[in-house]
């Protein structure tokens, strides 16, 4: 029989660990419970939830919160099946423990999708056991009992017990293997608007983030890093640094020199006083070199296409007309608002870490490997992240902090400046897309040939993207431009670039064929019913969002002085269609409104879901408008927000209307899919307004 109980002493130990020693869990519980009884037995049939004898329900949020709302959404799943009053639950960040929680990562828009079954089951199991405990207490059949808002109620007599009164008995029951989940029509929490569980802590400035970690004896640590990709550290002189008041130690690890001090400012001044000599360790690349190489690659046929149906080259050769366009996107930095940081205390063969990682499992492995200690000697606490966008899918920050702590033999809080972050990122690759479409005698697209090239990328394009499968002669070649500029996943990887190019090119074709862009897409979708090769999208879902966005935006009806653009895209199993409404006056763009229709299966938290869609759209639009990172001999030129521009309030559309296609299907991803179509929807609207195509991002503050 599995253990369904837990002592409060153990529970506090666990939650204190999750709170990174900031005693968050303890504080919250202590407030709820004046006298804490250490040996009290709590009901905990699984790792997801704990109910104490006073009826306080603590729900665990296993995945890191990076701003995607998972700390609210996952506990909602538990609460729904547990049948508790949402207002009365305490939500805790779970500690990292993959033996209990399985995959605890945040990325690929997968956390809610991955736990849809297991989290609801965890709640349902507990509810079932509480019902059994109550039925036994009253000696009545279970079938006469039901649950509501944290109570088990005996229907015929109206007797009721709150869950807390049943914990002792329930804790002794066997944990049922099989439980019935609710019918979606009975949902009272899932699908509703629920506020972010950390709102109160956020708006009062509580220490929620990795950067807020404070420990006894901790030293604030800054690092001096190579000034360019292709440079390495030759030597350093720390004599001036060690004279800076507050500086305690200087240590070297690989190519970084770390300055440990009693305050951030002392560490920074100490770092500025370091004398370092760098030497070349590889090519020093510049953006114009990449651009020149791209231009060659997109005119080079690949040996092996990533997808080929029919004969695209022949179709192009025999076409009545060939449309050809080249689209370009720049390198981007992740630039999460909270700069890179990590707390590490490594001593006596053990390591305690606390900080932002999207992949705790890999992070622990990487840290253990770097330190040469067993994984079980590494503990890892998971704070809320000040944004991630893919940046924390690598554990470079944790490993660096751990190594510095180990070498310096001191607890450290590593903090990178924004400049360090922009010079030390692994970036969204720049990429170039050359599209050709063959138009035949019947004014149909019967050939499509895309040659894509991207900087240091394993996936320059997405082989099976729409309209693959609907064009008889389709070919996609992809070239990787090798580089020592590190690149990696950035919110909606590859999609974030290719969607812009593809959705703008489809618009160009529609215009050329004198077809309405929405009707044109629906026409293509219709053809997908008898596909060429495989198709990886769901036709009715795709159709549903295209039609809904058209309806929401009154597509086809012109508002004087306003122009509309359309884009539709699917990624992470979610379908999103967007309409942008813009005006352009004297070269100045104004985005008045964006309409978004989304099919993501069952919406879990309506407020959070809408926030993700709006945020994704603004993220896509803001970067398309303003952001580019360029290199000069391996060094980034835009190293802070004065030159690496991000969207601000004045450019944000005042309204982004979001509608979800009603569905009770299992939830699909939502952190990323709204982003890819946004740049194209706006650029297509700019074309409608000005007659000019935008084929290179960012389009900048002044439209020519």
């Amino acid at each position, binding site marked *: 029989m599995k253990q369904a109980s837990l002592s409060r002493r153990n529970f506090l130990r666990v939650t204190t660990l999750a709170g990174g020693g900031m005693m968050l869990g303890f504080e919250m519980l202590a407030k709820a419970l004046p006298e804490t009884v250490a040996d009290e037995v709590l009901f905990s049939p699984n790792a997801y939830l704990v109910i104490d004898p006073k009826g306080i329900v603590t729900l665990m949020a296993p995945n890191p919160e990076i701003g995607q709302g998972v700390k609210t959404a996952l506990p909602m799943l538990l609460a729904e099946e547990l049948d508790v009053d949402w207002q009365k639950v305490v939500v805790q960040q779970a500690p990292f423990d993959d033996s209990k929680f399985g995959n605890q990562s945040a990325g690929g828009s997968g956390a809610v999708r991955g736990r849809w079954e297991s989290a609801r089951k965890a709640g349902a199991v507990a509810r079932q056991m509480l019902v059994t405990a109550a039925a036994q207490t009253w000696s009545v059949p279970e079938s006469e009992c039901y649950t509501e808002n944290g109570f088990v109620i005996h229907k015929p007599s109206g007797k009721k017990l709150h869950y807390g009164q049943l914990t002792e008995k329930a804790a002794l029951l066997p944990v049922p293997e099989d439980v019935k989940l609710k019918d979606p029509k009975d949902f009272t929490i899932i699908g509703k608007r629920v506020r972010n569980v950390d709102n109160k802590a956020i708006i009062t400035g509580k220490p929620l983030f990795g950067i807020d970690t404070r420990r006894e004896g901790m030293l604030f640590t800054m690092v001096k890093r190579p000034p360019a990709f292709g440079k390495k550290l030759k030597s350093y002189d720390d004599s001036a640094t060690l004279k800076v008041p507050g500086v305690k130690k200087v240590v070297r690890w690989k190519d970084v020199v770390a300055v440990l001090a009693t305050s951030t400012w002392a560490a920074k001044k100490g770092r500025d006083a370091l004398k370092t000599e760098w030497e070349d360790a590889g090519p020093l690349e510049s953006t114009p070199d990449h651009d020149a190489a791209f231009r060659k690659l997109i005119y080079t046929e690949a040996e092996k296409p990533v997808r080929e149906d029919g004969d695209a080259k022949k179709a192009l050769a025999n076409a009545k007309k060939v449309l050809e366009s080249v689209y370009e996107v720049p390198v981007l930095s992740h630039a999460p608002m909270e700069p890179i940081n990590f707390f590490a205390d490594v001593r006596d063969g053990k390591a305690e870490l606390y900080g932002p990682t999207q992949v705790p499992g890999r992070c622990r492995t990487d840290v253990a490997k770097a330190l040469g200690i067993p994984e079980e000697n590494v503990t890892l606490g998971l704070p809320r992240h000040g944004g991630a966008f893919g940046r924390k899918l690598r554990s470079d920050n944790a490993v660096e902090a751990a190594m510095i702590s180990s070498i310096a033999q001191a607890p450290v809080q590593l903090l990178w400046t924004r400049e360090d972050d922009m010079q030390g990122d692994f970036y969204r690759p720049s990429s170039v897309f050359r599209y050709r479409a063959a138009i035949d005698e019947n004014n149909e697209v019967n050939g499509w040939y895309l040659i894509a090239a991207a900087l240091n990328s394993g996936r320059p394009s997405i082989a099976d993207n729409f309209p693959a499968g609907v064009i008889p002669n389709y070919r996609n070649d992809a070239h990787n431009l090798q580089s020592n500029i590190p690149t990696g996943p950035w919110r909606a990887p590859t999609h974030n670039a290719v969607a812009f190019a593809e959705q703008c090119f489809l618009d160009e074709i529609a215009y050329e064929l004198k077809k309405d862009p929405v009707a044109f897409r629906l026409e293509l979708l219709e053809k997908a019913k008898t596909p060429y090769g495989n198709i990886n999208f769901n036709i009715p879902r795709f159709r549903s969002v295209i039609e809904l966005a058209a309806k929401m935006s009154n597509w086809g009806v012109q508002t004087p002085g306003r122009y509309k653009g359309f884009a539709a895209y699917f990624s992470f199993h979610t379908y999103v269609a967007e309409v942008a409404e813009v005006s352009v006056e004297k070269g100045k763009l104004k985005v008045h409104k964006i309409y978004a229709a989304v099919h993501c299966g069952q919406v879990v938290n309506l407020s959070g879901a809408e926030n993700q869609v709006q945020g994704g759209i603004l993220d896509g639009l803001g970067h398309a408008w303003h952001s580019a990172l360029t290199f000069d001999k391996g060094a980034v030129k835009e190293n802070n*927000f004065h030159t690496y521009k991000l969207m601000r309030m004045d450019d944000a559309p005042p309204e982004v209307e979001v509608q979800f296609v009603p569905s009770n299907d299992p939830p699909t991803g939502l952190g990323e899919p709204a982003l890819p179509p946004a740049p194209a929807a706006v650029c297509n609207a700019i074309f409608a307004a000005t007659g000019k195509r935008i084929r290179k991002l960012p389009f900048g503050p002044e439209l020519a």
Partner: protein
Amino acid sequence: MASFNLQINNRQYTVDVEPDTPLLWVLRDELNLVGTKYGCGIAQCGACTVLMNDNAVRSCSLPVSAVGNNKITTIEGLSENGDHPVQQAWDEADVPQCGYCQSGQILSAVALLKRKPQPTDEDINAAMTNICRCGTYIRIRKAIHLAAQKGGKV
């Protein structure tokens, strides 16, 4: 090192720091008021916004020696119980995503509402120059209008 007397959140603090230390790091490292955030260090992002008297200032670029007798309010001191009308509006509109920029956004909004209790969209565009990397601008705007409706003491 030099000694400075600071008035923060209606309390008197004495700190012993280098005179060029930005107020941001005094708050975070010396006084453990970590609600004020670091984002860029060059007065660009507004994550470090605090109120000096009633004005929004970027504490990453304000040396502690320049603070003098001015009254500083940080997010921790905006209200006793987190129920300042702007804080309430932020919760009601469910603004935060990651939340990191929000203490700065809230204090910028408070400063705006003190000057203009009923701001227009244009006023909001002009005053709210803080960056939100998560793109919560739509809800920030909504929350400011909501707080303005609540009126009363901001």
